[in-house]
């Protein structure tokens, strides 16, 4: 058997060392994801990319493709699992889309649309999270953080700065900043760092601008996230 896997009955090739997510992306197949980014090593924490591999649920962004795997992706069971997972992210934080500058450009929101999310299903946690506005050009709103660690990895691996660290345990997890004061203002971050643009939600935003694109013309008003494989 050559290097092929089957996703929802479609046979696709893969090269040695590729994960299922990478093989799927190369073949133009969308698997929902939030903590995965092609420029960074896999993390495997959001679990939105869960697929069934020979009947077992696995995170596709961390599971190596192996010849002959029978993979379920857009199955009703997996789509409803993903819907519940993204609802968990929504109720854990405080995501008030209508007042968020990232609305329409937000990958969390766009993925939720893709999964057909109409309500939050679970009771909200209503936890209090701080906002850090100490930086002249950037705002960190922890209410919108989904703990994907993309900024942690991008700042470390792409910007070479290591401005962030995930701190705490369990439900008390929080994004911490590597700076003498623990605030963004005296960290090494700057507004055009990858760490900023990679944030899938409105947690890390540039200041001095907002709502620049009218509703109807925003990125995800005109694109579907599933088309951005």
């Amino acid at each position, binding site marked *: 058997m050559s290097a092929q896997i089957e996703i929802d009955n479609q046979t696709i090739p893969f090269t040695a060392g590729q994960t299922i997510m990478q093989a799927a992306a190369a073949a133009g197949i969308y698997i929902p994801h939030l903590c995965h980014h092609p420029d960074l090593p*896999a*993390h*495997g*924490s*959001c*679990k*939105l990319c*869960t697929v069934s591999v020979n009947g077992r*649920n696995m*995170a596709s962004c*961390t599971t*190596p493709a192996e010849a002959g795997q029978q993979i379920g992706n857009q199955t009703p069971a997996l789509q409803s*699992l993903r819907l*519940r*997972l993204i609802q*968990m*992210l929504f*109720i*854990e934080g405080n995501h008030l889309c209508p007042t968020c500058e990232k609305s329409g450009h937000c990958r969390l929101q766009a993925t939720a649309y893709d999964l057909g999310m109409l309500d939050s299903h*679970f*009771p909200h*946690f209503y936890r209090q999270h701080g906002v850090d506005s100490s930086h002249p050009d950037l705002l960190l709103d922890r209410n919108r953080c989904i*703990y994907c660690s993309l900024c942690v990895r991008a700042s470390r691996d792409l910007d070479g700065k*290591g401005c962030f*660290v*995930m*701190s*705490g*345990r*369990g*439900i*008390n*997890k929080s994004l*911490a*900043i*590597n*700076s*003498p004061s*623990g605030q963004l203002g005296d960290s090494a971050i700057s507004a055009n760092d990858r760490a900023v643009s990679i944030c899938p939600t409105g947690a890390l935003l540039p200041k001095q601008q907002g709502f620049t694109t009218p509703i109807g013309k925003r990125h995800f008003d005109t694109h579907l996230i599933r088309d951005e494989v």
Partner: protein
Amino acid sequence: MSNLDFIATTIDGFHHNPKNLLQILITIQAHLHQIDDVAVAAVASALHLSPNQVVAVIDFYSFLHRHHRGRYEILISDSITDRMLGNQALLQQFCQRLQITPETPRSDLQVSIAPTSCSGFCDEGPAVLINGVALSQLTGERVATICDFIEANTPMDAWPDSLFEHREQIHQRGLLLNLPAPQGEVLNPFFTENQDHCDETAATATIAQLERAALRGRGGAGFHTALKWRLCREAVIARQQQGEHSRAVVICNADEGEPGTFKDRILLVHQAEALIEGMTLCAATVGAEEGFIYLRGEYRYLLPQLTQLLEKRRQAGLLGRQIKGKTFSFDITIHLGAGAYICGEESALIESLEGKQGIPRIRPPFPVSRGYLGQPTVVDNVETFIAAAAIAIKGDAWFNAVGTEKSRGSKLLSISGDCSLPGVYEFPFGITVTEVLRAAGADEKLLGVQVGGPSGTFITPDEFLRTIAFEDLSTGGSFIIFNEKRNLFEIVQNFTHFFAHESCGFCTPCRVGTTLLQRQFDKICDGHGNHDDLTTLQEIAQICKSASHCGLGQTAANPILTTLQRFPVSYQHQLCTNAFEPCFNLDFSLAVTRQLSQRDDADAHLSQQGGASA
């Protein structure tokens, strides 16, 4: 010595190695009762870390704190068995005598008290940790004595020895507990007369022997030990063939965090030599020079005697450089945990050994190919290493003769709860639950038994002919007995809270799911759950189970799922009949207001319609 001098000396003692960050922080916490910003800054700059990297580690472990804890820090073990033995009354007694409230240090910082996850003394509870040292068999009288010592500021060294004695009850010995302490004999086949280094054929023979003995891991997962050691050995050889300097690492998992388990502690007391021998055998087999014992923080009282034993074996030429005068070197370092159940998961344990937060790694790669510092690593349970040493000494046929077809040898059980003879028992695999109960003197009518701890299964009397074996009731050793007067919901609630507290928070289904489970279950317990709430509970349980990153999240819903299956009627009775029940409890939400207004009269309470307890 000033605090900063103490910190500097501690860091020197740990060779300025960031891998020792957790050990450094544990030492500072023990001495200064906190790791404040000044300490964080000092540690960070000495180890070339950023302050928040240090804070991230502190905030991960339950036993480390950025704010001052009492100079006498009391942690009261809150396992279900401690509760059954009356720990809540003792907690109240502590609070009254010492004028403190849980979680808040007294204003003079003399003392603080807080609950902690199961401390591993279930057969002789209730237990507490005071400044990290375990005290068991607590009674009202003992609490009074302890409070007096604390108020008099008597150093713990001056407290009577009797306060620190543990019964360490063994009621039945078998293959492992009867083994005389080995003195290096497992290494004999590795060194023939005129050969100076480890014999290759002895390594393959050891693996073949373990395979014939069919030894499977005793930590819960039951992985075949021979296969693990072989994969590790092959990974080392493969790397060496590519010109890499590769050495394996041997790690003993003595984190024993599963509530209800304490058999590893007993083994560390009575069979530590066999453990070290088993680890040395593993090192000779897989090609390791470095070994670790990851000892759960709750067992810190064992540290002096274990350290002494390692030293004794070094003196005897059985450990350290040039073992038995040959070129084989292998040494063992003991690392302490700091209150994190997740660090029992092998890849989280390795992260923790590297001085980091205990977050399970992505697998593959598995530890056998990339473990500690990227080197091929064997992680085995205490009992597994002892069994390996026993097999090397007594032979595979001796071991193989005991047990069942698929589960060879014996299993140590930690038995606690409603029985007259709680303690450690070594039984042949295949023993029925009924036989175990008889041995432990559990002759009341029972509600059931929790086998394998919260992550295992709750079984009812009609299942008592089931057997302790990998093919039936697989267990790391926890065996908690409940008589029929026990409240099922209190049991499940204790376990469900445990998992929410111990989730590492890395992945969504477990981080959010275990907290949702806790809230949803509490709502039902409080009599405010209706039929839909039960459906939601089951749904969350399935999400945790099917989408979590590691065993913790995958089993966190087991207490709910296994009891729901067996007690559907009890769950139905616990529900209220309302079509809708809000997820918040009105009366509970007013608690803060009542506190502020210092009122607790009837008018300061709101009743909620429909709830079973309203």
